[in-house]
C-alpha cells in the first residue's frame, strides 16, 4: 500500500501459514476459553441492549407493565419534544469544541513531556493527576473555582487586571467553561500520545537530522504520520466519550442556564430518572438512548471510512 517497506511481506506470509496449520485442532479449546467472556457479554451487554430497544417502543414508568406504542416515542422525539433539538445542538457544540482541543493539547503536552529535562517526571505525574482523582470531587471543586463572585479564577483574573467572566452562569460562556473543566483531564489523552511518540523509531529522527530537516518538517513528515493510527484511535475514543458526556454538565450547571449545556445524556437522565413527583419515562428515555447510539455509530463509521485518507498504515506492524 505504501512505498515504505521493511521487507515485511515475507514474514507475514510465513506467520499466516503457521496459523492455519494449528488452527483446526485448537478451535474447540479456543471456544471453551472465550466462553466465559461471551456468556458475560450476552448476559450483561446483549440482553440489556435488546431490552432497551424493546422499551424504546413502549410507554414504561418502571412500576407498571410497559405498554407497546410502536414508533410513538420516536415521533414525539423528532416532532413535538421542545428539548430534543437544543440537546442535540448542545451535544454537537460540546463535541466540536472538546475533541479538537483535547487532541491538540494532549499531543502538545505529550511532545513536551517526551523531552529529556530535569523534572520531566514531575510534570508528567502532575499532568496525569487529575485523571486519577475522583471525578465528582474535582468537578465540584471546579464549580467553586468558576463561581463568578467567590471563585478563585475570577479573583486571580481580577488581581491581574484581566477581564473576569460569568463562566458557568453566562449563557454563551457556560459550554466553553464545561469544556475547560473537561480539558483539565487532558492527561488521559497525553499518556496515550506519549506512548505513541516513544514507539516512533529513532532512526527516522536521526535520518531527518542528517538530512537537515527542521523541527517543523520533522513533526509534520515523521512524527505526525507515524502516530496517525493512534490519532485515529483518539479521535474515535474522544468523540464517543464526548457524545456521552454526563458528569460535568450534571454537576456544574445541571443543563443551565437555559438549555445551553443540556446535552443529550442529561436530557435522557432527566426523562428516565426525573425529580421527585414526576413520572419516570423509561420508554421515552430508551428511545433517546437509541437515537444517541445510532448517532455514535454513524460518527465512528464515517471517521473509520475516511481514515485511510490521512492515516499511515505500516504493512509490517500487524
Amino acid at each position, binding site marked *: 500500500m505504501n512505498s515504505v517497506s521493511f521487507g515485511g511481506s515475507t514474514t507475514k506470509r510465513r506467520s499466516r501459514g503457521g496459523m492455519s496449520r494449528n488452527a483446526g485442532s485448537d478451535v474447540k479449546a479456543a471456544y471453551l476459553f472465550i466462553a466465559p467472556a461471551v456468556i458475560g457479554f450476552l448476559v450483561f451487554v446483549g440482553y440489556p441492549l435488546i431490552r432497551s430497544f424493546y422499551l424504546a417502543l413502549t410507554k414504561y414508568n418502571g412500576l407498571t407493565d410497559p405498554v407497546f406504542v410502536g414508533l410513538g416515542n420516536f415521533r414525539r422525539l423528532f416532532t413535538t419534544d421542545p428539548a430534543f433539538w437544543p440537546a442535540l445542538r448542545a451535544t454537537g457544540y460540546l463535541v466540536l469544541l472538546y475533541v479538537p482541543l483535547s487532541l491538540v493539547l494532549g499531543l502538545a*503536552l505529550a*511532545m*513536551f513531556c*517526551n*523531552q*529529556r*529535562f530535569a*523534572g520531566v517526571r*514531575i*510534570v508528567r505525574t*502532575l*499532568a496525569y*493527576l*487529575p485523571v486519577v*482523582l475522583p471525578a465528582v*470531587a*474535582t468537578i465540584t*471543586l*471546579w464549580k*467553586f*473555582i468558576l463561581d463568578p*463572585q*467567590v*471563585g*478563585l479564577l475570577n*479573583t486571580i483574573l*481580577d488581581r491581574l487586571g484581566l477581564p473576569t467572566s460569568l463562566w458557568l452562569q453566562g449563557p454563551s460562556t457556560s459550554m466553553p467553561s464545561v469544556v475547560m473543566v473537561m480539558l*483539565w483531564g487532558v*492527561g488521559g489523552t497525553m499518556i496515550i500520545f506519549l506512548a505513541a*511518540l*516513544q514507539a*516512533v523509531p*529513532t532512526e527516522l*529522527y536521526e535520518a*531527518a*537530522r542528517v538530512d537537515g*530537516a527542521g*523541527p517543523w518538517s*520533522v*513533526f509534520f513528515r515523521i512524527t505526525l504520520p507515524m502516530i496517525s493510527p493512534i490519532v485515529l484511535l483518539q479521535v474515535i475514543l474522544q468523540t464517543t466519550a464526548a457524545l456521552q458526556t454526563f458528569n460535568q454538565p450534571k454537576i456544574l450547571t445541571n443543563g443551565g442556564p437555559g438549555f445551553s449545556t443540556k446535552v443529550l445524556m442529561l436530557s435522557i437522565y432527566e426523562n428516565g430518572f426525573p425529580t421527585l413527583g414526576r413520572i419516570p419515562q423509561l420508554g421515552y428515555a430508551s428511545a433517546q438512548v437509541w437515537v444517541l447510539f445510532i448517532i455514535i455509530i454513524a460518527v465512528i463509521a464515517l471517521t473509520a471510512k475516511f481514515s485511510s485518507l490521512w492515516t499511515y498504515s505500516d504493512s509490517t506492524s500487524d
Partner: protein
Amino acid sequence: MTALQTEPTLAGATQSVPPAKKKPRLVGTTAWYVVALFICAVMVVPLLWMITIGLKSRTAVFDIPPKLLPHEWTWSNFINGRRRSTSRNCC
C-alpha cells in the same frame, strides 16, 4: 518509560545533541521551564485550593474576595466528614 528516545532538538532539552549556539540555549531552557511551571500550576493549584477550602469555616468559604489561606484554620471539616461518612444513618 526507561529507554527514552531522543527527539528532535527543542531548545536545549536533549543532552545527546547540543545545539550549535550557546546563548539561545539558556534562553530556551528558561522558556522551557516557564512552560513546565505553568503546566504544573494549572494542574496543581485547583487541588491546593480544594485543601484550603477544606480548612476554612463554613462562612469563610464564601468570603468576598476569597482568601487563599483561611483566616482561622478549621480542622473540624475533616473530622466531621469522616464521622459522617462512617456513621450508619448518614445524610
